[in-house]
Every structure is written in structure tokens, then in C-alpha cells.
């Protein structure tokens, strides 16, 4: 299996990134760090989907005169553009929540917040 996995090395890397992000979300105490973990997870999923579109030796799918196939798959790129916007939006909201929590509670450490409750 390891051998086969080596062929799909790029996908495996995104799984590892995903898990690293998940680790941060679960184990980190600081809300911003937690959220950075989430961003890592987002990135890993985006990387995975973009990697789905790769074709060896392919070029960007821009059909200018002189461009020659193979072109890489445009769909994952289009999807991920949307995905990135979603991620940005989530980040903006999360940060504003963290700012509010910090203003009201004076801390953004999860354990201290739990004590405050």
C-alpha cells in the first residue's frame, strides 16, 4: 500500500495537513490558534481538490493562440476559488467573534473562558 500511496503522494500530504489542522483545533488552547488550525484544514482540503485537477505536463487552461494541450482541469480551480472566499468569510467572522470575546472577557484562552462561565 505504501508503494501505491507514494504515487498519490500529493493527496497523502493533504491528509497529513488536514490532521495537523485538526490537531490544532482540538489541542490548542488559544482561540486564534484554534482558528489557525482550522485555516490549515481548509488549506489542506483546497490543496487536495486542486491536486485532483493536475495533469502531468499540463498547462493553465487559457486558450490563447499557441496554447497546446494537455491543459489542466479547470473545474477544481473554479471550485477552490469559491472555497477560498468561503474560508475568508469564515475567518472574518471568527476573528470578529474573538475580538468581541476578548473585549468582554479579557482573555481568549479556552480554559480561562471555561472558568469564567
Amino acid at each position, binding site marked *: 500500500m505504501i508503494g501505491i500511496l507514494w*504515487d498519490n503522494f500529493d493527496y497523502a500530504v493533504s491528509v497529513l495537513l488536514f490532521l495537523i489542522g485538526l490537531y490544532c483545533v482540538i489541542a490548542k488552547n488559544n482561540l486564534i490558534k484554534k482558528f489557525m488550525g482550522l485555516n490549515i484544514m481548509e488549506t489542506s482540503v483546497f490543496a487536495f481538490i486542486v491536486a485532483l485537477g493536475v495533469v502531468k505536463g499540463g498547462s493553465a487552461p487559457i486558450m490563447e493562440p499557441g496554447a497546446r494541450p494537455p491543459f489542466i482541469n479547470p473545474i477544481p480551480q473554479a471550485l477552490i476559488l469559491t472555497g477560498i472566499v468561503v474560508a475568508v468569510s469564515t475567518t472574518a467572522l471568527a476573528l470578529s467573534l474573538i475580538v468581541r470575546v476578548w473585549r468582554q472577557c479579557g482573555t481568549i484562552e479556552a480554559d480561562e473562558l471555561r472558568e469564567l462561565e
Partner: protein
Amino acid sequence: MKRALVIVLLAIVAMPLLAAMAAMPRFGSAEQPAYTHVAKRYLERGVEEAGAENVVTGVILNYRGFDTNGEVTVIFTACAAVIAVLAGSRNRQDQREAASSVPESLVVRYVVRLLAPFIALFALYVVLFGEVSPGGGFQGGTVFGALLIVMTVAVSRNQAERLLPLRIRPWLQIAGPLSFLAVGTAGVVLTGWYLGFPQGATAATRLMLMVLEFGIGVGGATVIASIFWRLGDEA
């Protein structure tokens, strides 16, 4: 202790994921289903059908235009959400003072002022040439939004805000969804389908794509700047 547990848990999660990855179609292969099914048609006939040389743009705005309609809604949602969460927590008087008390560096300030028109021009370029080269409305809008942020930080917030007048700002924030609604309705009139474009690279198609690109760009830039200012008010 907790960390060890988490790591064990993640290791367990990792197994099936990695196994699945190993069994995915070969990375980079031209025979994988992702490449031979829907994408094939996009690549073969995308230019004439969708009216954009950059097939990614064609996919974003034409084939899967409705996704992008959702996307611009999401980003406006984020803007509305941030405003809703932060609105009315402090009055504006404090904010002005807080904004003007940022220490300024003369050098940075002049450099920013000098570069601002060029950055704006570049943003415009990215928007306009999104059809034929890497780029597009959102990318351009982000560049412009970044410019507004830089100006806020380095020059003055008032000056940056003047670029997006408060009276029409609610409309600028929704430029993205509005342009999609407009173009979508135009599509209904022209082709009978929401977000339908006339076949091929006609003038109408170009115009509609351009309206979308600009809508996305203006909306994106405004939203990014608005969120930044809102967060600045609060901090």
C-alpha cells in the same frame, strides 16, 4: 496526556483516509474520471461555448456561474455578519479618535501615496483581463481591498473611507450579488435561463461577463475594507 490522546485519535483517523487516498485515481493521470468526463467538454468547447479564453473564468462565470452567485452572497454574508456582531458596541466618536492616533511614518506614507494609483490600476487590470489571463473579478477586488487597507494603516482612514462613500456603501457592498441578479435576469431575457449567456464570444456575452467581473471586484473590495474597518473600530 490530552495531547497524546488526540494524537492517537488522529492516527486512527489517518488510516482510512490514507487508504482512501492510495486507492484514488492516479495523481496527474490524464485518464482519471475527473479529467475525462465533464472537464473534457469544458476544455474542448469551453472557449466557444462560454465566451472566455480563460476556461477557469468560463467555468466560474458561465458553466458554474450559480456557484459564484452563491460565493458573492457568502462574502456579503460575512460582511453583514461582522457588522451585525460588532455594530453598536462603541460609538463613532471614539473610533475617529482611535483611528487618527495611529503613529505615522512619513516614508511609508509617501510610498503608499505614490504607489496607490498603480495598485489601483493593477487591480483594474486583473479584473479586466480575467477573461484571457489568470485573474478575475475577485482577485482584482482583493488587490483593491488590500490597497484600501494599506491606505488606512499608512495614510489615514478618512482618506481611504472617502473612496467608498458612506451613503452608497451599502449598495457597493452588495455589488456582487446585484450584478449577478442583473446579469442573471438579462440571461433570462436573452436565452430563457437564469445566468444564461448567448452562445460564443458575442458583444453581449462580453458585456455580461464584464458586469459580473466588476460587480465581484467592487463588492469584494468593499466588503474586505468594510470588515477591516469594523474590526478596527472594535480593537
